[in-house]
């Protein structure tokens, strides 16, 4: 039986800011026995437009994305937030149009967030990464509450050789990112992320992990601004052992 085709929905943030996460995700999906394809008709999932009230743009991006992955058996995204957009909200965007609804429902059924894909859909025999040290994990909101992602990342981290996971207090509390919220309501966002990074720091870990780059950029930006040594990485980087690039917001020239 030929390996199933899994389309990688890269997410715009990973595409633009941190391609290393995309490669880590591709490596893990291959380890799960799939052939990875990256349709180049994908751009952004449309969530920024959707959550800004621009339903028309969100809908055209939904249709663009659905069609870009037409020939894939699975669609896998290294982000709970984008995966929830594809899986939960695309069908809502086309509701009332039966043909499109069927298309969006069929698409939604093949969409998976990376960690749950690796535990529940195509369980991987072993996790390629190895990390000697203590990490802590932030449950990003959309993945946690819209897709129920809670145990999958922890099960995968438990399989990483050398890694020790220490839970922070309030790991399920929002980091204050919220997309454009962080820019538009910067002071409130700052109050929330301050509480988050203070909580993360109490875990006394060397790495703060999460499954969403948006949250990670927010927390990393706060930690580097305050000079805190806790570094941030996407969980896929640790699982895949893709650790050559410096942590998020850290310099390749001098890694602290």
């Amino acid at each position, binding site marked *: 039986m030929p390996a199933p085709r899994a389309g990688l929905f890269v997410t715009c943030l990973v*595409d*633009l800011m941190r391609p290393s996460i995309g490669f880590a995700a591709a490596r893990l999906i291959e380890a799960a026995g799939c052939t990875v394809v990256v349709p180049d008709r994908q751009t952004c999932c449309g969530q920024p*437009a*959707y959550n800004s009230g621009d339903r028309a743009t969100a809908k055209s991006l939904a249709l663009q994305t659905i069609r870009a992955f037409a020939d894939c058996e699975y669609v896998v995204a290294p982000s709970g937030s984008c995966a929830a957009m594809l899986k939960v909200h695309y069908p809502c965007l086309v509701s009332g149009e039966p043909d499109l609804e069927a298309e969006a429902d069929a698409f939604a059924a093949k969409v998976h967030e990376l960690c749950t894909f690796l535990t529940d859909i195509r369980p991987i025999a072993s996790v390629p990464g190895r990390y000697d040290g203590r990490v802590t994990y932030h449950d990003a*909101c959309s993945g946690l*509450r819209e897709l129920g992602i809670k145990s999958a990342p922890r099960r995968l981290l438990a399989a990483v050789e050398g890694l020790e996971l220490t839970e922070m207090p309030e790991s399920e509390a929002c980091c204050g990112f919220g997309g454009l919220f962080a820019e538009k309501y910067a002071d409130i966002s700052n109050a929330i992320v301050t509480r988050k990074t203070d909580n993360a720091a109490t875990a006394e870990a060397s790495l703060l992990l999460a499954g969403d780059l948006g949250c990670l950029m927010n927390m990393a930006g706060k930690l*580097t601004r305050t000079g805190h040594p806790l570094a941030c990485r996407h969980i896929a980087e640790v699982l895949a052992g893709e650790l050559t690039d410096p942590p998020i917001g850290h310099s390749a*020239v001098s890694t602290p």
Partner: protein
Amino acid sequence: MKPDTAHFRESAAAAIADPRLQSALAKLPGGLVAQRRAAVSALPEFEALRDEARAIRDATLANLATHLEAFEAKATAMGSRVHWATDADEARRTISEICSRANARLVIKGKSMVTEEIGLNAHLESSGLDIIESDLGEYIIQKRGESPSHIIAPAIHLTEADVDADFRAYHTHLDQNRELGTPERLVAEARAVLREKFLSADVGITGANFLISETGSSIIVTNEGNGDLTQILPRIHIVVATIDKVVPTLNEAMTLLRVLARSATGQDMTAYTTLATGPRRTDDLDGPTECHIVLVDNGRTEMLASDMREALRCIRCGACMNHCPVYNAIGGHAYGWVYPGPIGAVLTPALLGITETSHLPNASTFCGSCESVCPVKIPLVSLMRTWRERAHDQGPRTLTARILSKLWSAAATRPALYHLIACFAVAIGGALGRANGRFRALPLARGWLKHRDLPAPQGRTFQQLWKETERGVPR
């Protein structure tokens, strides 16, 4: 109260910079939030009860007219006078007429959000009445000239030191050198002061948590017992309730009560839950001689006919605000009107219009904590998103925002163009940010950069690099 929702951003910044408020808010996670968690985990059927509560609310709203008529008929048969008010003005006039017919001078009140909404106190005061709030938290904020900052804990923004100073300032008839300082002493003082008011009040005004069609009763829940003294001691009892408060039967109300107290304070039942049914009976030794029930619409029928209908399920437990990271950061006053937090961000635009209130549904991270605890499963995030759509349709606030949003959607819906621009932008960003791995300042993203760095891009897009690996170029 006069709404001030337009200055949300400034009010929020001031709230964050207020250390006194922050120390009061810091008690929420270990207080109401932890208490709810304990209560919920002690009841295995809690999740099923949420579904049942939601079903009860939906079924009642679907037949609202019939249930209201049934309530009116039964309440009238039990001796209450039922009044209907389409808006705040009519509600205020109705209540004020009842008070003046009774030659009332002093009115004592139980805690009621709808009377805050319709600005009842100011109206009654302007017609020469003395109004005293009897819920301890409401009493404190009334004395301070503030509005509630939380729907069930109105003075949650204050510390005991604040209350100590306030009581010394207001209770000038008492010895200025008396010892206060502890919550016990402060409560005892308020009890003594308010006891006098209960005994001399002519009219008692309460809200209603529910109105029961089956029995024609109003239900209030309190812990202090103030609502009961309000409806037992004065000659006249006035219940003010919005039309969505009706519940067909006692048993259905019980399901709602089971989720209400647990969601609000983590109690399985508040100290006092009272079913009040009409005025005193001929052989009764106490109770009011007249009982009036004022049913207020004030925007509810519009909500019922709109896509905001689900918000009418709300039973005002306050759990959404207790669990909201934004509310936890800024408290209730910054929202600028009587309903704060996620339910306020949905309700306030529905009652005041979206034009002046668009900050409220926008100022959310959409983390979904509110929905996950709502006892009647109101889809708060999607209702806030619907308000964002309304606000968006009215046009973005600034020209820059409008241009950026147009450019972004033009590019994102044209993949080839998008990837071209992306490669270009990322190359520049990568080159500029390479040395530090992050930016501390940029001409854009000023809000973000005010408090945190912006991680720099790695310099190439994933799409670019992936195509190269497909062509066999090593990464």
